[in-house]
């Protein structure tokens, strides 16, 4: 089905940009899991030489947000956002790109994909990469081969990237369910969409960095009062506390 549908669940990820430390463990675990499973193998060209390249589903960018003292280094993992209105599904001429009705996961059927790459042009986020060995497009599967896999212990039936994050910056769940952990996180922290102006309605949400102590705030700390100031020290302290 390559026209838009409303799925029953909206399974997706919530990425916490406040706690992500940019270790890339999620990207490595994703690569390892998918090189062995459903999307196997993932190409790695010239892995030990110059000009290496390969297919990864999850990539970690690092941005500097703001300027000067109030700027913040934000590590930014990016993988398929399993959009509600995925143009990658609409443009696919063969129907190989599809969105599942039961849980909203967007997948590529590698048996019918012709490798025209139009889906990757339609995705504004760069979620899809071309496997030039297999001649087909590949992308994050939301670890569909883990989350329903009865051969794994129940606690392990979460995407590989979520399982491995040492900073608990990745969360998995049903964003259509307002009582789910992920939905509550999004509501509490003001989770947002990427490029909302394009109207793809991504399901994955990003939690913004918290306004932190000093570094996150735009206001400079109040200047220390001059030593010659005749005001009583307790009153000067009170002044500082009330000015913060």
């Amino acid at each position, binding site marked *: 089905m390559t026209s838009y549908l409303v799925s029953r669940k909206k399974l997706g990820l919530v990425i916490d940009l406040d706690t992500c430390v940019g270790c890339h463990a999620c990207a490595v675990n994703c690569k390892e899991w998918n090189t062995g499973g459903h999307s196997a193998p993932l190409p790695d060209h010239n892995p030990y030489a110059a000009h290496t390249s390969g297919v990864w589903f999850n990539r970690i960018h690092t941005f500097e947000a703001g300027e000067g003292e109030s700027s913040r280094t934000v590590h930014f993992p990016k993988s398929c956002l399993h959009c509600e209105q995925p143009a990658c599904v609409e443009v696919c001429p063969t129907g190989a790109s599809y969105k599942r009705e039961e849980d909203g996961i967007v997948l590529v059927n590698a048996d019918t994909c012709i490798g025209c790459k*139009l889906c990757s042009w339609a995705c504004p986020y760069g979620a899809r990469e071309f496997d030039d060995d297999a001649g087909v497009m590949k992308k994050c599967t939301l670890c569909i081969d883990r989350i329903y896999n009865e051969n794994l212990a129940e606690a392990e039936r979460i995407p590989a990237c979520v399982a491995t994050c040492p900073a608990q910056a990745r969360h998995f769940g049903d964003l259509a369910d307002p009582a789910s952990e992920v939905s509550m996180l999004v509501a509490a922290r003001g989770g947002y969409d990427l490029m909302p102006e394009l109207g793809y309605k991504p399901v994955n949400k990003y939690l913004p960095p918290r306004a932190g102590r000093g570094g996150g705030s735009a206001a400079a700390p109040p200047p220390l009062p001059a030593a010659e100031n005749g005001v009583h020290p307790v009153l000067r302290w009170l002044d500082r506390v009330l000015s913060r």
Partner: protein
Amino acid sequence: MHPALSVIVFTTASGAGYGLLALLGLLSSASWLPADRWLGVSAIAIALTLITGGLLASTAHLGRPERAWRAFSQWRSSWLSREGVMSLLSYVPALAFAGLWFAGSGGAAVAVAGLATTLLAIATVYCTAMIYASLKPIHQWHNAWVPAGYLALSLMSGAVWLNALLLTWGAQRPAIAVLAAAAIVLAWWVKLRAWRYVDTTRSPSTPESATGLGSRGKVRLFEAPHTEDNYLLQEMGYRIARKHAAKLRRIAVALAFVAPLVLTVLTLAVDGAAAFVAAALAVPLVMIGLLVERWLFFAEAKHTVTLYYGAETV
């Protein structure tokens, strides 16, 4: 966007072929063309050769070309699928048109086949253009100048081919040369407006909207996710310097518009062998000019994914 040679050749060749087919269908039904059946069948054959060659070239772009037949199934939702379906369908009236014209059958049957060919040829070019125009992440493509440009350039290149074919056959029609000149001027205007749109407008997407971190101020890439190339950068990271693009635009204008216009007007002014040479020369010039224009169409297109790799605007 990476300019893929197979797609550039496909859209240029098939654009000319469909333009030629559309004009043959329309003009013969209006009795603007000679009734000569060998002229008719040769002209349609040349058009179909351009189209078929183009379509086959486009399969070189696929990762799994042996599965290309699957691309006809999603015409309800995909412009690429619709283009495939329309391109196949357009062979039906085109071959009927050729057969009826060759058989010398009566006006009504040929006219109907001709008009059906015209409609399907135009529809196919429109579907091709919409493949690009429907893509929101590419601001330079996501506007009405793209289908206008594809249709106008298809008409123009088809008209230049038609004028050359008529002169080759010794069957010059001044009205066709005037039509070709007008088509060139129209396509030139459309292309200039399309380039103006590219030069003066920007996508609403920015590094701030791409990351959602704009509340803190300007967002810039601090470290890329990988030190080496990947598919995204190879396919979507292509950049051309503005001064190189400007030079190529001038070359495209000279080869695709100025030279063919001068030569087409010349075919009205001179006779015999000189007119034939002018008309024939216009064909390779317009095709090379269109290859340059199409190359630029890809090279000047910027994809929003580059916002994640350090681009400040797209």
